């Protein structure tokens, strides 16, 4: 069970934090992993800060408790910076992935991270989404970046599974599918670490 990844996603209601966790779980499951994805449910509606989680492992996962010390944290909305402690509970050598156009080094300074062992990754997921899909929906870009950061699976596996999934949903909109795949690929490759 030592190989189990735990991920926490921060977003706003309606922004896709829950979907990002579900997409990652589905892709990882398709790649043969044991997965969990679960949101933290409250009465919040659109716009409120929300959190969701993943567990991903090579062996079956029996834990059904909250993720308290995620090795990986993803932040879908840059406007959270300064208002939420993303690193809460993160262990040594954890990795923080933020959707922002701020370079990673600058972000690290802005966040004033106490723990030097935590790696900070940035990706302009909103910009990548706009460029490739034509809409500022960052979750597939963030998915690509997170797969790279946490080394969940090979990029090709992720692309294959996502394509299959999107084809079911958007079979009449091939450009949308290609745009999402391009966004995933770009985010996977461009994610920056400091």
């Amino acid at each position: 069970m030592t190989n189990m990844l735990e991920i926490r996603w921060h977003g706003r209601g309606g922004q896709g934090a829950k979907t990002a966790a579900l997409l990652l779980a589905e892709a990882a499951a398709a790649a043969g992993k044991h997965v969990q994805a679960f949101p933290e449910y409250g009465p919040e509606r659109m716009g409120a800060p929300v959190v969701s989680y993943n567990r991903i492992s090579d062996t079956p996962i029996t834990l059904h408790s909250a993720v308290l010390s995620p090795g990986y944290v993803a932040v879908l909305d840059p406007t959270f910076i300064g208002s939420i402690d993303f690193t809460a509970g993160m262990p040594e050598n954890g990795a923080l992935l933020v959707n922002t156009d701020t370079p990673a080094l600058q972000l690290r300074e802005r966040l004033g991270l106490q723990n030097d062992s935590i790696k900070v990754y940035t990706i302009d997921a909103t910009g990548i989404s706009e460029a490739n899909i034509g809409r500022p929906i960052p979750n597939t870009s963030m998915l690509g970046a997170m797969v790279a950061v946490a080394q969940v699976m090979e990029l090709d596996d992720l692309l294959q599974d996502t394509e299959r999934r999107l084809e079911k949903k958007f079979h009449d909109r091939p450009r949308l599918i290609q745009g999402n795949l391009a966004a995933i690929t770009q985010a996977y490759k461009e994610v920056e670490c400091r």
Partner: protein
Amino acid sequence: MALQEKLTKTAALTGNEAAAQAMRQIHPDVVAAYPITPQTEIVQLYSTFVNDGIVHTEYVAVESEHSALSATIGAAAAGARSMTATSSNGLAYMWEMLYIAAGLRLPIVMPVVNRALSGPINIHCDHSDTMGARDAGWIQIYSENAQEMYDNLIQAVRIAENPDIMLPVMVTMDGFIISHGMENVELLPDRAVEEFIGEYRYPYALLDIENPRTIGPLTLQDFYFEHKRAQADAVVKAKTVILKVGEEYGQLTDRSYELIESYRMEDAEYALVVLGSTAGTAKYVIDELRQDGEKYGLVKIRVCRPFPAVRLGEVLSRVTAVGVMDRADSFSGEGGPIFAEVRAALYGVSHRPHCINYIYGLGGRDIGPDLIRSAALDIKSLKDGSESDSLVRYLGVRE
């Protein structure tokens, strides 16, 4: 998410999706249901199956849970395989009809997503809803995860409709934790489920109009007791049937099921007794304790009605101390419902272990490995001590 893509053999599904898929494969003739958090997704998905023409089910979007079970009762008595689903206050609103479904011996299968009962209102998991319905005459099967929810629902049809049983079955999973959590689930092919469950049989179908029957008459002092005695007998027989169905299901899937699941109990000195999703987390803790050289084991109660008292007695009589974890309080002043029943089960065994109760997780309060470990270590201290200090301990509540 498109539904068809979920039809592969293994999929990542939420508990609610797994339940809806099981229902789709069971393919009831009638589903009458009312939405309630956290069950809502099940009825949403099912109505999508109906409106997409994937199932031939007649979907009755009733105006309340009372009517949901009433319509399901009517449909089952008419001669149609019928299902509903609910949670929490919805189950409470069905209360009267729960007893009637069981008393009329209608083999209805109902997923129940465990949620705390009001008040105060809370939408998260505990077992107060189904624990309160233990004596309604339904068979109760608790699921640890989404896979078990799926497996249990399919087996429930066979159990309910067995001619010796003919009782309704509720299959539960923990609200949000399982219902909204996505996990790997292995699905059977549709055809395999169809063959496993067979055709619906109710001997007194109302729609068999050439043979008019009266269902639900008034029975008085001269007959009511006999009807109830027969009902009690069916519950006893259900133990054998559940085992048989669980074994047969194992041949189909490599996942066989019993009344209880013993985890690392072979040489255990201490045991936890748990239901539902917490059993999974507790297994993780047991593994850790075993790594530390501590002889702990776990007993998961899968079937709560009929209550597996004899099996529990056999398994638990070998240990020194037992911690019974209840995700509901019975407000008896003497601990939770499972505690009372486990202790009663231990009365008849020659070597009675110490037995203590941990009430935990009410209203969805998280139960993590640390809390379970603290309870596990706590029962070890009972070894030489007396039980005179509080037998009922609240785990994870602020003092």
